[in-house]
């Protein structure tokens, strides 16, 4: 008798390290993690839908440029949305919001949509993009949360117009290094190793 397993979606961030550029440098708190994760998901899904929907309209030769332009438009649209919601959050993320256009998550979607043999985005492919985006969002939020708790001694959720809801306020000396890129690299290294150990214990292949 064969045992059926649930579909396995490797964590794109911890397994393939896809999209680590903004995560190491700008994902320093839960609000920043949520903003980057939602942005990456928004860009990937929009690209997945629009680039395939326009397949017959744009010549293959121009598809890479068309997809890249779409990606930058999506990232800009999202960054304006974040600025409208919380200007301080948008200022903190700085150039990393528009750079979501060329983050590896978006480029990964562009590659999949632009390859000559790829089919138009059916429900299955969009579901796959959505699943990866959701896993990426969860990982970005967890990493931001860990860095905020250990690096700043608090945990917050962003509210409109620069307000914030404090979920926790801890009284210990924070590890300031975690708010810097150095701390982001080191934490991501340990989390990637922990993810491999968990996969191995679950009987999955180490990526």
């Amino acid at each position, binding site marked *: 008798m064969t045992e059926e397993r649930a579909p396995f979606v490797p964590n794109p961030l911890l397994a393939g390290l896809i999209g680590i550029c903004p995560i190491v440098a700008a994902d320093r708190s839960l609000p920043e993690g949520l903003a980057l994760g939602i942005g990456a998901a928004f860009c990937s899904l929009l690209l997945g839908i629009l680039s395939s929907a326009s397949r017959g309209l744009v010549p293959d030769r121009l598809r890479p440029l068309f997809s890249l332009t779409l990606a930058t438009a999506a990232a800009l649209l999202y960054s304006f949305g974040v600025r409208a919601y919380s200007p301080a959050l948008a200022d903190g993320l700085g150039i990393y919001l528009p750079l979501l256009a060329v983050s590896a998550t978006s480029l990964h979607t562009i590659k999949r949509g632009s390859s000559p043999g790829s089919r138009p985005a059916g429900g299955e492919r969009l579901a796959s993009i959505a699943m990866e985006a959701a896993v990426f969002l969860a990982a970005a939020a967890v990493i931001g949360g860990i860095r905020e708790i250990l690096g700043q001694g608090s945990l917050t959720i962003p509210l409109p117009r620069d307000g914030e809801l404090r979920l926790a306020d801890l009284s210990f000396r924070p590890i300031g290094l975690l708010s810097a890129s150095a701390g982001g690299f080191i*934490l991501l290294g340990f989390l990637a*190793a922990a993810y491999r150990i968990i996969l191995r214990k679950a009987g999955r292949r180490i990526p």
Partner: protein
Amino acid sequence: MSYLGIIASSVLASNALLSYGFGAIPAIGAGSFRAAAGIRDGRSSLASALALACINSAAAAVLWCVRGLVLFPLGLAGLDIFFFALIVVPPLKALARAARSGSGIPAAVGAEADELIVGSLVFGIALVAARGGYGLGEAAAAGAASGLGYWMASSLLRRIRERLELSDLPDAFKGAPSMLISAGLMSMALLGVDSALVRNLGGSP
């Protein structure tokens, strides 16, 4: 800021890879993405350094012109990345492909540059240089120095990877996790560089 200060700051205090995280995937050697600039296999080091310096300098200078001379007067400076993708990337790609079809060092540089143009490294460095309040020459110098800073950091990481492959690491840490931790330690070392001091090297131009 002096040119010396801009170069020292872009290479050390604001390193593209270790401070901003630009181009981290190929430098770490993770994922299915091609290792940019011969980083994974260490080939053609001179071509890699030249490609990184040339393409980032050109991207920063062109974006500075588009942003400062066209978009800013029209109140559209916030759309700089869109116009970068739309009107700066295609000619840069064409230039890199033209160089690629030649021979010798220019061909190698063109091939490396062609691979690098669409990615967080070139886009990120160009945005930082164009939005950094520099003049045209300073933005171009900052772009070139940032490219060289990235090449320096990724070359060091490649050497570390070669050493780590021979050492007895736990399985879970082999490969990308150990490289991430190494990059973090290198980044920590650069935190010790006083950015204000570095920026003021050589005094005012």
